[in-house]
């Protein structure tokens, strides 16, 4: 059984070598890429506007200048070819970090991901592995509307051969991206663009090997005893807020940030359920066949005996993400919706 995952920036973690300030989520990502590009000469970067411009959000800012355009490629607006070319380069010994300008555009390269890339290791009985990371800005709450707000991780969690990761803190952003870039498998890496520059989550983040965070280990964002809330990405913060509301009502919620969907750290969730006996799963993707439902299903199967109340989930409604704020908030999980469901569960 996994125990509580130490956050790399917690007091007991080895302190980072150079003294430096807190950094944001975006800078953490940039550091991860920079460090890995420095360590691995076979690592390439491919994406739209990632070189000269440094990326729409600046995640790869400076990389082309530092590592050269033979390693950092400004690609044509061809998502399918970007993934496919990256796959070919991996087949021939490279590792590739692919940036989707927005994760929404991944649909245009869908076949190359799920049929060409995801299955390569399987098809070749292990002869070939494809060390590719596909990362990009994702998520709602920013008024990005239908095509700049998606969380479509479930499509890929449902496509065997892909790992799926979604960090919610600067430390995890860096540590998980570094691990993903070293992984032998294709990894879908969901960055939450609303967290890129969020001030109140800036933190001290180690450099180098100390900063690694393994894939497949959940993080307990907050300990608690009455209810287990399982989530990831931006919803972690909504759940922590909801936990405060619960606290005011006299209940203590444990908030688990799974960080990695595939592979999933079921043990951390099971351990928590053994303590709380109540479950709420939260994600901002549509409900039907989303990952919150997957967690709910697995726990209903495996921890039925532990559950003292119906397990619940709060997700986006089964709608696209509309543009203007009132509509957007109507369809997405909110602190209020989570708190209400949580209270219902603990009071069951």
């Amino acid at each position, binding site marked *: 059984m996994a125990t509580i995952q130490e956050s790399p920036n917690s007091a007991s973690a080895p302190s980072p070598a150079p003294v430096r300030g807190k950094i944001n989520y975006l800078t953490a990502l940039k550091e991860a890429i920079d460090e890995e590009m420095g360590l691995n000469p076979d690592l390439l970067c491919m994406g739209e506007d990632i070189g000269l411009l440094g990326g729409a959000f600046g995640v790869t800012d400076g990389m082309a200048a530092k590592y050269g355009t033979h390693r950092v490629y400004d690609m044509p607006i061809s998502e399918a070819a970007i993934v496919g070319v990256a796959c070919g380069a991996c087949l021939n010994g490279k590792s590739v970090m692919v940036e989707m300008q927005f994760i929404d555009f991944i649909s245009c390269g869908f076949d190359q991901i799920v049929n060409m890339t995801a299955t390569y290791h399987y098809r070749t009985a292990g002869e070939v592995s494809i060390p590719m990371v596909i990362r990009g800005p994702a998520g709602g709450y920013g008024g990005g509307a239908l095509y700049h707000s998606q969380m479509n991780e479930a499509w890929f969690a449902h496509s065997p051969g892909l790992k799926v990761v979604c960090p919610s803190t600067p430390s995890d952003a860096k540590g998980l991206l570094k691990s993903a870039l070293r992984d032998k498998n294709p990894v879908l890496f969901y960055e939450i663009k609303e967290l890129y520059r969020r001030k109140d989550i800036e933190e001290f983040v180690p450099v180098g090997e100390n900063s690694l965070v393994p894939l497949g280990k959940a993080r307990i964002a907050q300990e608690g005893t009455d209810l287990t809330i399982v989530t990831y990405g931006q919803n972690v913060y909504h759940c922590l807020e909801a936990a405060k509301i619960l606290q005011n009502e006299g209940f203590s919620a444990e908030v688990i940030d799974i960080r990695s969907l595939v592979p999933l750290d079921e043990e951390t969730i099971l351990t928590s359920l053994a303590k709380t006996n109540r479950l709420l799963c939260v994600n901002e993707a549509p409900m039907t066949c989303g990952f919150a439902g997957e967690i709910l299903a697995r726990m209903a199967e495996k921890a039925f005996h532990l559950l003292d109340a119906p397990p619940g989930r709060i997700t986006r409604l089964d709608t696209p993400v509309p*543009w203007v704020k009132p509509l957007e908030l109507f369809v997405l999980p909110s602190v209020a919706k989570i708190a209400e469901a949580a209270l219902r569960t603990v009071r069951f």
Partner: protein
Amino acid sequence: MLLQLYLARYFDVRLIKEKKRGRLKGTLYSSHNQEAILVGSLFGLKSTDWISPIHRDMPAFFLKDARKGWRNPDRIGMTIQEVCAQVWGKAGSPGRARDNWSHIGSKKNRIIHSTSMLAGTIPAAAGVVLADRLNGGDALCVTYNGEGSTAQGVFHEAINFASVHKLPVITIIENNEWAYGTPNELGYSLDDFARRADGYGIPGLIADGQNVLDVYDKVMQCVEHARAGNGPSIVECKSFRAYGHGDHDDDRAAKYRPTEEVEAGRSRDPIAIMKRIMVERGALSPEDATKFMAENKGAAETDNSDFPPEVVAYLTEGVEFAVASPVPPAEEGGMWVFAE
């Protein structure tokens, strides 16, 4: 046409001002310096023709069929009120502000609703005119695309299909030299995009995108080709993106693009060029030509006096409508997922 050029330019200038004034939020994708492409390509179309504009083509929504008069109630195009309500994210938008910026359209006005996915509406354009033909119509569809967007697979699939069935789809390539932060030499390896038409056995024309009359001529050649049943064509309009990709990118664009290149690109202002031609042809007196001076001015330095009053007035109506229009109620977020 000159008035339409002014209107398109003023739309851009006015939105920037509204944003600076704090009355407007969101990213703006400017068509500044590329207005001749829109005006020239729309001018000769029939009311019943379809269009498919994208992010840099906002003025197309209200310029469609504008030859009939902007305020003509029989016009088959969007009103300035509708377009402004969309920009402002208000219930008066034809899409009730469910998706943003240029992702609107109108079945009634024969405008295809784009998604963000570049080149993604060209197949729909082919489908729309196919359906029209089956109904005995002769509508064509003009689709607008940045040169960068042509790298999408669906661009190829759709044009190939249209060529097989000789569907009247005219694909305008707004070649403004840049796709966001990527220069053309990293996007494709041709000098003239129009040559791509060869690969589909269809005509590929090149127009001076700064000269509205040249755009008009080339598009009308394609229109005739299409109406004669000869199918699709491509018109590459050579132009230059005056500012950033969007206004969030203005500062960065000033860094990633050499100043000389930008200055050269901006120097051929389509309004100034049109005026010069009109003066040469005696259609405009030299005095009148100096009247409104929006041309060759940066968007920031331009003000209302640089535009004909009817342009300012029309747009102001749109803006006031938009500002007054309510935000749609939250519950609409859950509506219209499925048709009953």
